[in-house]
Every structure is written in structure tokens, then in C-alpha cells.
């Protein structure tokens, strides 16, 4: 069974590589390369997979999942400029892909291979663009 918890955070970022020229960054990232940055209302959906506990009837306590997301993602990232305030985005470009992978890494430390396991992280940068990451390379 899959259970999903949704959370939101607002953050700013700029997508540009220091090794590239402004023109190259603009070609790669479009308006997201504007040097002073811009922001989004990110929506995060965290999905766990497991069998419901026969006693509690729950796959995982959603209240605990909410707290875990709060501590590992929302508190560090909400109302922050990701490039300047949230490592590793001082070193890697905070594209939606990289932010989703970082969220996966942070959450996966709290789940083993057993029951429940972390199934998927979906991160909406806007209503029209989202990333799904399940820990796989591709």
C-alpha cells in the first residue's frame, strides 16, 4: 500500500554554473539563470510503501511523517535562498531534479529497506513542472 503526505515550502534559487558564461547559462536554464534569483512555492509529495500494521492499521504514522518532513526539509528550506543558505546547493545547481534528489537523500536516512520503505519523492516547482524520484539512477 502507498501512503502520501504533502507539504509546501517557498524558496528562491538561481540556476547557473559558475564555469559557464552568462549566455551559456541563459541557454541552458532560461530565465532561471537570472543572477539575483527568483522563487517558487514548491509542493512536495512524499510516498511511503508498506503493509499496514495489524494492530494500528497504519502503514506509518502520518503525524510522524509530517514531523520528519518538517524537520528535514521544510525548516531548512522554507523561506530560504537555496544557493546561499541550504547546502549542498552552494556547490550544485538547485534544479528541481537536484532538489528532489537531495530531499530523497535526507528522507531515506530515516527508512530502511523494510516496512515501510520510501517509495517516491515528487517535487512540484510549479503546477506545470514536477519531478519524481525513487532513488534510481535513471
Amino acid at each position: 500500500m502507498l501512503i502520501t503526505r504533502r507539504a509546501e515550502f517557498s524558496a528562491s534559487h538561481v540556476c547557473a554554473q559558475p564555469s559557464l558564461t552568462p549566455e551559456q547559462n541563459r541557454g541552458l536554464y532560461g530565465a532561471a539563470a537570472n543572477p539575483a534569483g527568483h522563487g517558487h512555492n514548491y509542493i512536495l509529495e512524499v510516498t511511503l510503501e508498506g503493509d499496514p500494521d495489524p494492530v494500528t492499521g497504519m502503514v506509518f504514522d502520518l503525524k510522524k511523517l509530517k514531523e520528519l518532513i518538517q524537520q528535514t526539509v521544510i525548516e531548512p528550506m522554507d523561506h530560504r535562498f537555496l544557493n546561499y543558505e541550504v547546502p549542498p546547493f552552494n556547490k550544485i545547481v538547485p534544479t528541481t531534479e537536484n532538489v528532489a534528489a537531495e530531499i530523497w537523500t535526507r528522507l531515506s536516512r530515516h527508512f530502511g529497506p523494510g516496512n515501510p520503505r520510501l517509495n517516491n519523492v515528487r517535487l512540484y516547482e510549479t503546477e506545470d513542472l514536477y519531478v519524481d524520484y525513487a532513488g534510481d539512477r535513471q
Partner: protein
Amino acid sequence: MRVTRRYRFAASHRLHSAAFTEQQNRELYGKCNNPYGHGHDYVLDVTAAGPVDPGSGQVVHIPSLDRLVSDQVLRDFDHRYINADLGEFQALVPTSENIMRVIEDRLTAHWSEAFPGEWPRLESIRLRETKRNFFELKT
């Protein structure tokens, strides 16, 4: 990793098959068979999959995907009567299922021009005809 981009187009269509009588068409397609057609605000989700490029941090170059979908789908479908304006539907009923297949064919045929490398790959498309129904196709 999968990246999904959402697009929208407004189009009209009429469900009517030459294989059936007028009466059979009415019974099968109901209101969708009304003679002058009707329209929807379609929502098209295109999902591309691949590894994250370590340099760019991207799975897919979004402007390239936008250009591909715009050139191959939106330009021809948006604000059109699908039955009359699109060649593929001269002999094909424009159900959402068939619209999906045509969109898949168009994107697949031009995918390697937009993305010459091994990645990203077109993974799936999803078409929402109204808020109460949608169709998904793994490509």
C-alpha cells in the same frame, strides 16, 4: 528520475465512426456524437526519464521539450477542430485514446531531433479531457 511537464490546448472534436449507423453512433458516443462537435480544455502531461546530468543538474532541457511539444502538438491541436483540421483524424475517431496515440507518434518521430543523446527518453504521456477523466500511455 522522471520529469513531467504540463501543457494545455483547447480543441473541439466529434465522436463519429463511419463503421456504424447514425443510430449506433448516437448510442455509442452519446452527446459526443452531436453533429457540430464540442470542445475541451485538454491538459497534456509529458514525462521524460533519464539520469541527472551531473553538470547541468537536469534530466531534460525544458526549453527543448517545450519547443518539441509546441511544434508537434500544440501548434496543430490548439484552437482547432480536430476532425476537420488534423490529417490523422480524417479516418480516425478523435477519442482521447486515439488523440494520445497520435501525440505519441508525433513526439516519438521527432524525439531524437530534440534529444540526440541516449537520454532523456519519452516515458509516458497523460491526457486529461475534463477534470473527471484522464488517459495515460507508457511509451
